[in-house]
C-alpha cells in the first residue's frame, strides 16, 4: 500500500485486486471504462486491464443491477457502480425484491454475490438529487448487507469479504472521502491512533492511548469519521474533553460488542450520521445501546443527524443543513458536566 494514498486510489486498487483475483468477477456501471474511468474516476484503468470483466452499461440503473443479479445467478460475482447513490432508488426493486429475496426464498441458500457501490453524501454542491445519504433505506432487509467505507478500513478486505459472503450488499462511499487520504494502519493522525476490533469487517477504534475511560464515546460511519476527528481534536485541545471514536464498516447489524465496554465506562454516547433523522442507523443503534447498557449510561444516547430538509446546492445553505464538526463537538459538550 502506498504511503500516502487517496481513498479513490485505494478503492481503485482494491477493485483491481478483486478483478485480478477472480476472473468471474464483473464490474458494471455507467461510463466506467477508460479513458473516462467513471464519474469519480474510481474505475480508471480497470477496463484496460480487465477488458472482459469491466462492462459499461447504458443509463439503466434497474437494468444494470438486474444484469448483475443474472450474472450472480449464473455463478459469477458482480460489483455495480451507481454514479450517485441517489440513483440506487431506481434499483430498489432489483436489490430488495430480487437479489435479497433470491438468497432464501426458494428454500435453499442461493449465493447472490452482488455488491452495489454508492457514492454518497453531500458537501460537493451537487444539489438535492445528488447529495443524499440513503443508507437507512436499505437497513433491515433479510439477506441484504449494508456497508460504508472509512479512511481506516481496507477496501480490498471489504470487497473480498462482502463478495465471499454471497449475500447482496450495498457499499456506501462518501464522495468527499474519495479525495481524502487513507489513514495508514494504526495512525489516524498526529494525535490519535486507531485499531480495528471486533468481527469482520471490523470496527475502527480511534483514541489516544492511555486515556481511559474517555469522557464520551462517539460512533459514526466512515463518511462522518473525518468530521468526528476534527471535533475530537478540538474538544481535547480546547475543552479537555476526551472522546473515543468507533467507526464500524457494517451498518446493518452493526456489532455492539466492540462498543459496549467503552460506552459503559464513559457513560456517555453520541452517534452521528449523515442524512436526515427518522428510521435511521443511528436511532436503531441508540435503541440497542439503551437496551444493552441499561442502567450504565449517565444520560440518553444522543443522535446527531442532518437537518430535516433537502441538501441545498449553494455551499452556505448546504452547510446549514449537514452535520459539521462543530455540530459534533457542540453535542458532546452539551452532555459534558
Amino acid at each position, binding site marked *: 500500500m502506498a504511503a500516502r494514498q487517496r481513498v479513490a486510489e485505494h478503492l481503485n486498487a482494491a477493485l483491481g485486486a478483486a478483478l485480478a483475483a477472480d476472473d468471474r468477477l464483473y464490474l458494471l456501471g455507467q461510463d466506467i471504462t477508460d479513458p473516462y474511468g467513471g464519474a469519480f474516476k474510481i474505475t480508471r484503468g480497470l477496463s484496460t486491464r480487465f477488458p*472482459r470483466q469491466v*462492462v459499461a*452499461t*447504458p443509463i*439503466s440503473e*434497474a*437494468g*444494470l*443491477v*438486474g*444484469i*448483475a*443479479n*443474472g*450474472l*450472480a*445467478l*449464473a*455463478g*459469477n460475482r458482480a460489483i455495480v457502480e451507481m454514479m450517485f447513490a441517489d440513483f440506487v432508488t431506481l434499483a430498489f*426493486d*432489483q436489490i430488495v*425484491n*430480487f437479489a435479497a*429475496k*433470491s438468497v*432464501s*426464498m*426458494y*428454500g*435453499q441458500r*442461493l449465493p447472490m454475490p452482488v455488491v452495489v457501490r454508492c457514492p454518497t453524501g453531500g458537501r460537493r454542491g451537487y444539489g438535492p438529487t445528488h447529495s443524499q445519504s440513503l443508507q437507512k433505506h436499505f437497513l433491515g432487509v433479510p439477506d441484504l448487507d449494508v456497508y460504508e467505507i472509512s479512511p481506516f478500513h481496507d477496501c480490498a478486505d471489504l470487497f473480498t469479504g462482502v463478495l465471499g459472503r454471497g449475500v447482496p450488499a450495498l457499499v456506501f462511499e462518501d464522495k468527499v472521502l474519495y479525495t481524502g487520504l487513507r489513514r495508514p494502519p494504526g495512525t489516524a493522525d498526529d494525535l490519535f491512533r486507531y485499531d480495528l476490533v471486533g468481527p469482520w469487517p471490523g470496527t475502527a477504534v480511534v483514541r489516544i492511548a492511555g486515556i481511559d475511560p474517555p469522557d464520551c464515546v462517539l460512533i459514526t460511519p466512515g463518511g462522518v469519521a473525518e468530521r468526528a476527528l476534527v471535533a475530537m481534536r478540538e474538544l481535547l485541545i480546547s475543552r479537555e474533553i476526551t472522546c473515543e471514536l468507533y467507526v464500524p464498516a457494517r451498518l446493518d447489524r452493526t456489532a455492539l460488542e466492540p462498543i459496549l465496554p467503552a460506552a459503559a465506562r464513559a457513560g456517555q454516547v453520541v452517534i452521528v450520521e449523515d442524512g436526515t433523522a427518522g428510521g435511521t442507523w443511528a436511532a436503531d443503534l441508540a435503541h440497542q445501546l439503551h437496551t444493552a447498557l441499561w442502567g450504565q449510561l449517565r444520560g440518553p444516547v444522543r443522535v446527531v443527524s442532518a437537518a430535516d430538509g433537502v441538501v441545498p446546492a449553494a455551499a452556505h445553505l448546504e452547510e446549514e443543513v449537514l452535520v459539521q464538526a462543530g455540530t459534533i463537538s457542540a453535542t458532546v459538550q452539551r452532555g459534558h458536566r
Partner: protein
Amino acid sequence: MNPDDLRMMLLIRHFELALLDLFARGEVHGTTHTCLGQEAVPVALSPLLDPDDFVFSNHRGHGHYLARFDDPAGLLAEILGRDGAVSGGVGGSQHLRRGRHLSTGVQGESLPVAAGTALHLARSEPGRLACVYVGDGTWGEGAVYEALNMAALWRLPLLVAVEHNGIAQSTPTGAAMAGTIAGRAAAFGVEHLHVDATGPGVSVPRDALTGPVERVRRGAGPLVVEFATRRAGPHSKGDDPRPADELDRLRAEDWYARLDGPEFDRLDAEQRARVAAVVRDVTARPPATGRAAAEVEQWQPVSV
C-alpha cells in the same frame, strides 16, 4: 398431436383444474394463477430448451415448470405447503426455482436478470440461452425495455417468450399497450416472431420456433417470440370480469374443447387420474419443511 405433447398439455390442464378445485374447497392458502388455455406455449417451447438453459418464469408459471420438469407432485407440494415442495414451501406458487429455472412474482423484474444470465452464457457457455416468459401486460414495465436494449446491444442469447393472451388481470391489452409487441422489438433492432399457440397442436408452433431459437444460440442476438394464446380461466382464483359471451367464446375456442376421439379420451383419463393421484399423495403429506425438495437441491449444471 404427438402423444407426449398431448400428455403434457393434459397434465397441465388437469393440474390447474385440480388446483382450482382445491381452492374452491378452501384447501389452498394464498393465491395462484392458473395457465388454463395457455398450455401450448410451454409445451411447444420446452423441448427446444437445453437442461442448462436459464428459464425465467412468472406468476402464471405452472405450465412452464411442468413442461420442463414433469413434476406435478413437487409443484403441488409447493402450492399447498407440503413436504417435497420445489421451494420448500417458502416461495409458493409464484416463486419456484429448480436449478436454472426460476420464477418471481414481480412483473418485469426478471427481464434484466435474464439478460444478465444471457451475458454469462454468451461469454462462458456459448450455445445456451436464457428464456424469459412474459405476459402482454408486463410490457408496461420499464425494466422490459432496459433489458431489451442491453440484450440487443450486446447480442445476447435471450429468448423473450411473450404469452399474449390479450389481457392483464382485468385489463384488455388495448387499454394498456400502445403500439404492438412487434414494434417494440423492432425499436431495439430485435428479431420478432409471431407464433399462433391458440390451436390444440404444438408441432406447428414448435417448428416455427426451431430455426429462430437455434439462431439465438448461435449468437444472432435476442429474439422476441410473441405467442398468441388465450387465458381460458380467471386471473387468479376466481376473478374474471370478462363478459359472459366472451367467456363462452373462450371456452368454445379452448383447445381442450376442440379435441376428442378415443386416443384423446384415453390420455385425458390417464392424466386426470395421474393428477388425482398426485393430489391424494400430496395432500396426505406432512407440512413443508422450508427446505427445497432433495432432488431440487441437488441440481448441478450439466457442465460449466
